[in-house]
């Protein structure tokens, strides 16, 4: 039989800080950021987006050319050191035009998202918070708007309003907010039955305060995720409209009309299609990956 030595039975040392929390405590955002950072694909998306945004802001200023001046001597040049992306059939520098287009696309995306955010959150929040008859009426209106095909409505609106950035944004804003409103309403319905809201109400908080201070913070994660999907939708929207000829008109550059032009000339000058296409796809791809990543990071419950 094995002999068990006595020194294996020493009393445990008393440690005073056994209960102490070693790791720093993280709030919701720090925790979300930590989760997002560990998602490589989403981080690549974020970095690409930041790079593209910087280029869209800086490149047109730094470039020797502007987006509309025509140099008829330099028609249809292939990419070179002076014209990084080549030139088009009016001798306009494609590098500058692509970044101008990116700028416009991002601008449309951000404005559309802001409108969606304000209208959708207010509408959804009010509808869910008050409930009952108010909710009923507001939801019936939403159901009708929701089933109107957005793109078709936009096409006829723009045909009649005249093309341009403003028309595109108006057309998008008219129906785009519905998705956000539905989402916010669903989430608010879920949150508003919880005890802390009841407590706030018992303490005499007004509806506006409850919505802004208690309900919105609880749905903000969802809203952010939704925005990362709205921006690419709006960008796609502009590009699609420009592609079929009702969006932004030349000489103003937009990714949509650059791709449209490129598609016409691709047989002889493939660079005119390839560069705007790559930038456009990168924007959409990055937003989508980032959105997926944010969804996992901001809403751990949703994660599989």
């Amino acid at each position, binding site marked *: 039989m094995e002999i068990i030595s006595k020194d294996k039975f020493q009393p445990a040392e008393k440690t005073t800080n056994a209960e102490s929390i070693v790791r720093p405590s993280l709030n919701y955002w720090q925790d979300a950021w930590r989760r997002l950072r560990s998602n490589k694909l989403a981080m690549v998306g974020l970095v690409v987006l930041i790079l593209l945004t910087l280029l869209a802001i800086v490149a047109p200023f730094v470039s020797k050319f502007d987006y509309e001046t025509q140099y008829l001597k330099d028609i249809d040049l292939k990419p070179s050191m002076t014209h990084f992306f080549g030139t088009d059939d009016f001798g306009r520098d494609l590098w500058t035009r692509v970044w101008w287009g990116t700028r416009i696309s991002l601008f449309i995306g951000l404005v559309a998202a802001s409108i969606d955010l304000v209208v959708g959150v207010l509408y959804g929040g009010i509808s869910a918070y008050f409930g009952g008859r108010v909710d009923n009426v507001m939801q019936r209106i939403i159901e*009708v708007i929701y089933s109107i095909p957005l793109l078709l409505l936009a096409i006829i609106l723009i045909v009649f309003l005249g093309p341009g950035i403003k028309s595109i944004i108006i057309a998008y804003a008219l129906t785009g907010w519905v998705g956000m409103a539905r989402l916010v309403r669903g989430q608010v319905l879920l949150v508003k039955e919880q005890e802390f809201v009841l407590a706030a109400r018992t303490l005499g908080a007004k509806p506006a305060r409850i919505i802004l201070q208690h309900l919105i913070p609880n749905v903000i994660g969802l809203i952010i995720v939704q925005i990362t999907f709205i921006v690419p939708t709006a960008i796609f929207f502009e*590009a*699609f409209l420009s592609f*079929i*000829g009702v969006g932004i008109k030349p000489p103003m550059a937009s990714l949509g009309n650059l*791709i449209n032009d490129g598609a016409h000339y691709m047989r002889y000058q493939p660079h005119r299609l390839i560069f705007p296409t790559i930038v456009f*796809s990168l924007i*959409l791809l990055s937003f989508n990956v980032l959105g997926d990543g944010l969804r996992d990071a901001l809403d751990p419950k949703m994660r599989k």
Partner: protein
Amino acid sequence: MLKYVLRRFVYMLITLWVIITATFFLMKLLPGNPFGEVAAKLPPENLKILREQYGLDKPEWQQYLKYIGHVAQGDLGVSYQFPTRSVVDVIKQSFPASLELGIESLIFAVIVGLLLGIFAALKHNKAGDYSAMFIALIGISVPSFVVAPLLSYLLGNKWHILPAGLWQGPEHRILPALALSFGTIAILARMMRASMLEVSSLDYIKTAKSKGLTTWKIVTSHMLRNAILPVITILGPIAVNVITGTLVVESVFSVPGLGYQFVTSITTLDYTMITGLTIFYAAILIIVMFLTDIAYGFVDPRIRMSGRR
């Protein structure tokens, strides 16, 4: 159930009515003379007769009711640019090509999309899953108006594998259908993957596994049936995707379909054609959404009970 169907039907009618009304009043907003340049030179008496002939002298609400009546009877008016062609004739003439293209791309997309989704779910969190989902992500991010010209250029012009355009033999169908199916494949694959993953954690699948069934058997006879149900909900987005896709794909590949007509009418500012085709497309989409709701109501009783999507 009947109440639910009726309710959705009423919504469908309201939505259609909103669209028809919107198009009517947008038409009224148009600046200028409805009879074009020539009519501006006509003496006032003739113009008055013309206006009477088209009912433009009546108050707007009467014109509006008349317009609704016409649309309800399937009369969408006459082309503004080519007064000999009625909108309905154009639809009859060019819709079949679009429909064929749409169906071909749908068949292809359903096969590839579902397979991709199932494959990704089976290889969950492995390399296969990631690559399948990356393909799907690209399908969502790279829209048809990028895919279509690229396909036409690469396969058609550069490598001469398939015709780069036109609509004649079966070989002319492949590229447009392929270009049109990209987005749909992506939507379907993502949906199918999520739905398969959800089903795969259920108890009856464990039972099937412990009985010793092969993966093939489990997937085909146990998982698919339940996993495929939620896919019905995305029929609406898919229909939107296919229709907006045809607008682009037909223009790129010169397919003589309705999408091509629509884009042409937009570029030539053929107002009656634009509004007529918009109403037609809207009607298709709204009917698809209606059928989706009904189908889902049948499939999932919880939806029917709450009456909300």
